[in-house]
């Protein structure tokens, strides 16, 4: 917990190597940290700062700008109900209220068992499937109240684990490039700068 594991440091090095300037890897590395611990710890930010030659304040400045990065633990499943305009027109507000009742928590909170964090979020780009939601950033379209309750039951029963990896894992597939195939020419001719 906290600092990146040796495997993740190795992964971090690979990611950093793909960018002409290391700082570009900051957001991807924060994702790696979040995948490791389910949220982004202070220790991880410190460690990332070390890896990139930044201050922890700089890392926090970037980290805190982006909503996906959580700086305190969340449930295993982050259930984001879209409240964008298209979903709102098709009943997302009622769906959110319904979800709050079903889960017994208000939007923004985590169920007592730590399983589900419910959120009402802005448009998730599935407007043609409104009302929609995402569980750990995996989409579920045309959600009815009944459908929502079924989904919750399945999450509780653990029957959809393969579909919804735990919070933090946004991508189960990583770009892999054999070193020989990577040209690295993107870094050619870049002037040195002092202030990143």
């Amino acid at each position: 917990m906290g600092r990146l594991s040796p495997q993740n440091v190795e992964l971090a090095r690979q990611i950093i190597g793909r960018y002409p300037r290391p700082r570009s890897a900051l957001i991807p590395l924060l994702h790696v940290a979040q995948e490791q611990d389910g949220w982004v710890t202070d220790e991880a930010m410190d460690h990332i700062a070390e890896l990139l030659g930044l201050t922890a304040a700089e890392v926090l400045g970037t980290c805190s700008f982006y909503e996906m990065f959580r700086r305190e633990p969340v449930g295993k499943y982050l259930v984001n109900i879209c409240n964008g305009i298209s979903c709102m027109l098709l009943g997302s507000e009622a769906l959110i209220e319904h979800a709050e009742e079903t889960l017994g928590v208000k939007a923004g909170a985590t169920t007592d068992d730590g399983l589900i964090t419910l959120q009402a979020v802005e448009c998730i780009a599935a407007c043609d499937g409104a009302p929609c939601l995402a569980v750990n950033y995996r989409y579920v379209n045309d959600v009815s109240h009944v459908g929502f309750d079924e989904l919750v039951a399945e999450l509780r029963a653990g029957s959809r684990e393969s579909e919804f990896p735990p919070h933090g894992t946004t991508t189960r597939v990583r770009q892999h490039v054999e070193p020989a195939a990577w040209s690295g020419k993107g870094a050619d001719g870049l002037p040195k700068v002092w202030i990143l």
Partner: protein
Amino acid sequence: MAKAMRPPIVMARFGVDDGHTLEGYLRTGGYEGLRKAIDMGPEAVHAEVEASGLTGRSGGAGFPAARKWSLLAPGKPSYVVVNGDESEPGFAKDRPLMERDPHQLIEGSLICAFATGSAQVFLYVRGEMALAQERLAQALTDAYAAGYAGTNIMGTGVDIDVVLHWGAGAYIVGEETALIESLEGHRGMPRLKPPFFPAVKGVYMQPTIVNNVETLSNLPWIVLNGGAEFAAMGVNRSLGMRMFTLSGHVNRPGNFEVELASMTFRDLFTAPEYGAGIRDGNQLKAFLVGASFPWLFEEHLDIKLDIDEVQQAGSMLGSGIVVMDDTTCAVRAAWNLVRFFAHESCGKCTPCREGLSWLEKIMHRIETGTGREDDLDLLLDVGDNITPGLAWPPKQTTICPLGPSGVAPIISSVQRFRDEYLLHVKEGGCPRGRH
């Protein structure tokens, strides 16, 4: 009535089950455009794209792609950035393009990089799109392994790297200069243009092309079929085909790729192969052509999906068309949109950071029952301090257009539905009750 439906270009593989795999892609003509482009040479590709009249498909002003490329300051390292941050309410077209045809996007961006002499492509994907990331990661891995990306592409000696980069949740990062900041590992706060036009001072202050996912996805087809073929569709600035996400109160929401200027909004909403009518046979109240833009109404139903016609109607042809029927509360709809922009303000400039959250508070008050009559003037005057003159196209006291975007729904709804606002004030809240 609409012209006969054209076979889609960018959505062509949506019907192919394995279209997202390298195998499926190659089987359906994949990477032939890139091969041809390399054979043709950069100038010829550029000329072909110019001939196609392809404009930016991000759903804003629609800047001609070839013209953007020629703005690139020469003699420096340059980059191509794929804008896959799609987050505008109502827009849901780039996500399926990335999920269902990732290789097409990769091929398109390689063609762009080849044509502009860039050695590296950054594929910036919205952080919340897990499947798109996975599909693109797999596609890139396969493309590299098969020699379609990286060193010595297809044995031609061309070297172009493509790196998959993912965001982390911030609408403003869709704005190209904020995207660049984000790509550099910073807070996604826009840079002022001028001087920071990406083509001059973009990623790492080097010349950079930022193009939308759909824009680039068109390139393999254009190279293979020729620019003229593309330009044969549509008229004037509205050439080729374009994707639209239709959502809201229609019977058949979905993504449709249509020939530009070939059909009207009425066609789109009612034709059985498109929207198939407004739900429950209700009347239209208003429709959005982009959450950032002025609303359109009944009287605009017969204008075409044509950049110029929509502009003449006082709005802009975005890619997300949201239909509101007459059961919709205009105040609540506007509040929803203002809330979105207030929430997504990056906070860099004062009018947007302070002004939009103020507007949101006023809207909230009106909708929930503590509005006052002079709030309407206040809304407009505060809006005027963000976008002076409340005109279209908007002026701005802000750095980027997000500030004015947050005012657009207020202008549209207050002007059109003033009575509805007043009713809210009078009745102490939304007459339609809780939603």
